[in-house]
């Protein structure tokens, strides 16, 4: 029955291409709805404060997303400061001591962290930090995000170190070098792209998360650089303004979606993928 299988293949084409089509439709919508808003307000979007909720009563306020952009950078920055040291060293444990019981346990823990729904981090950190500190803050949001980013860095690091051929490591050891010197100096050039790629992926993942930040990072329509202040982030802003019936809020949600996806996340992901592709070990 040579005809019948062609029908199946046609069906696969249809289903596959149409799902790809819908996914591209999502990306397209972000451009079509987000870009005009950014063009309309120009650079103000990146430099001005978020209009306060009562803006209708106070004439024409400034319209921008600066607090959410800075807030996103702060929260993700705090998160990477916590998650990189832990993730990187845990990754080395998982790769270089892979036969030890500790490494196997570490692998289990890392996969637990990936599997737990991200909103969990928001609730736990709420009880752990927001209640004692009496206030949501960039710090609390950063800690919540770090829990989500740690396993990404750990597993990317481990995969990268595992891929370095044993012969190269043994070469270093045969010269009488310490194992730590081999790991951190001799093969640095080989592992750097992989580790950086994992770090960029973790940053991209963290920047897009809203659920862990809803109850931990708070809200702020002004720019602040104090980690103990509340901050708004692009992801939380999309959620909060998205439900509004006010045209201006919905416009800002689209602009925030555009900035988040096309200026922050996709460049990070693309650079991350290019790094590993160019430096295949």
């Amino acid at each position, binding site marked *: 029955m040579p005809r019948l299988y062609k029908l199946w*293949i046609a069906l696969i*084409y249809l289903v596959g291409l149409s799902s790809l089509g819908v996914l591209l439709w999502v990306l397209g919508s972000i451009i079509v709805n987000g870009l005009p808003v950014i063009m309309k307000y120009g650079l103000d979007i990146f430099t001005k404060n978020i209009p306060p909720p009562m803006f209708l009563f106070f004439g024409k306020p400034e319209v921008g997303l600066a607090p959410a952009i800075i807030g996103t950078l702060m929260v993700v920055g705090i998160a990477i400061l916590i998650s990189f040291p832990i993730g990187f*060293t845990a990754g080395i444990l998982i790769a270089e001591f892979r036969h030890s019981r500790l490494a196997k346990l570490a692998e289990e823990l*890392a996969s637990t962290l990936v599997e737990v729904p991200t909103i969990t981090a928001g609730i736990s950190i709420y009880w752990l930090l927001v209640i004692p500190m009496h206030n949501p803050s960039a710090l609390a949001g950063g800690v919540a995000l770090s829990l989500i980013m740690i396993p*990404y860095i750990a597993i990317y690091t481990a995969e990268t170190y595992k891929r370095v051929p044993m012969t190269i490591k043994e070469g270093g*050891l045969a010269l009488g070098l310490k194992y730590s010197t081999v790991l951190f100096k001799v093969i640095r050039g080989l592992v750097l792209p992989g580790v950086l790629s994992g770090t960029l992926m973790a940053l991209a993942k963290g920047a*897009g998360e809203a659920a862990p930040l809803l109850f931990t990072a708070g809200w702020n329509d002004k720019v602040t650089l104090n980690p103990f202040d509340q901050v708004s982030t692009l992801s939380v802003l999309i959620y909060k303004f998205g439900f509004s019936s006010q045209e201006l809020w919905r416009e800002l949600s*689209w602009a925030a*979606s555009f900035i988040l996806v096309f200026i922050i996340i996709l460049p990070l992901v693309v650079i991350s993928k290019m790094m590993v592709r160019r430096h295949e070990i």
Partner: protein
Amino acid sequence: MLRERKLKAIVLFGFLGLVAAVLVLTVPLFVNSYDFLLKYGKELLTSMNWNPPQNEYGGLQFVLGTLWVTFWSTLIATPLSISLALLAAELAPQRLRGLIAGLTDLIAAIPSVVYGYWGLTVFAPLLANTIYPYLLGLSKLPIIGILFSTSVISPQCVLTAVLVLSLMITPYATAIIRNGYEMIPKDLVEAVYALGGTKWDVIKVNLGYIKSTIIAGVIIAAGRAMGETMAVTMLIGNNVGPFKPCLLCRGSTITSVVANEFEEALLNPYHAKALTALILVLIVMGSLLLAFGRKIGKKFVEAEIVA
């Protein structure tokens, strides 16, 4: 190698960091819900009467809602992701394969809140104006009619959440299945061709060969759907009433009720603790699902990160 104190201290730091992260993630949930669980634990999982101001905490509808949404979105995402993976790994012209694979990977990075907002403003109104009125007509049919019986069509409903969710998890499952497909030994493919097989025969043999990877991919995707918060909360309609096996109705899940109510819940200590307990229930549900998946799939952890 063995007597290097510095290196040992470094990796021990990493280990303790992971332990601390897992503790920070889970311990506050137990600490802040055990007295609630002692008092209302049974009610939470057996009743569907959710009325926190009256201290009634029946949360079964959220558990069932989560399972319901996960089931349908996985059911829809499975054929989509197998088709996409086959296109990217086997069927599409060589030049387009990389493009399809790259695009699905990039799309996987779009945050769920953005999918939610797109669903809310673009997709949901479109569905409510075009397809949903026809589906409502199906409500007169016996048995399957119950899926579509609702008094009013609402753009935000279970089906809207399910459709957007299945789109969101498709790239994850696709990446895992594609990875498995690309690792199939070439000998196998050549053997099928040598026996006079067609491309279709090759696909059939290959899909059989990576069956466990496909199941792993689907289960990981289901796990994502289960814990997904933002898009579901924005699209499902957030009706906390008793669970109905319905697709056109407004519904709720564990994540949607937590995202919606946690902020106001802080006024009533037991309300906040009830939501915390629901998160614990969600974690248990997810672990059961993935434990089942781990039994089947081999390289599970790597697959999780690929996605």
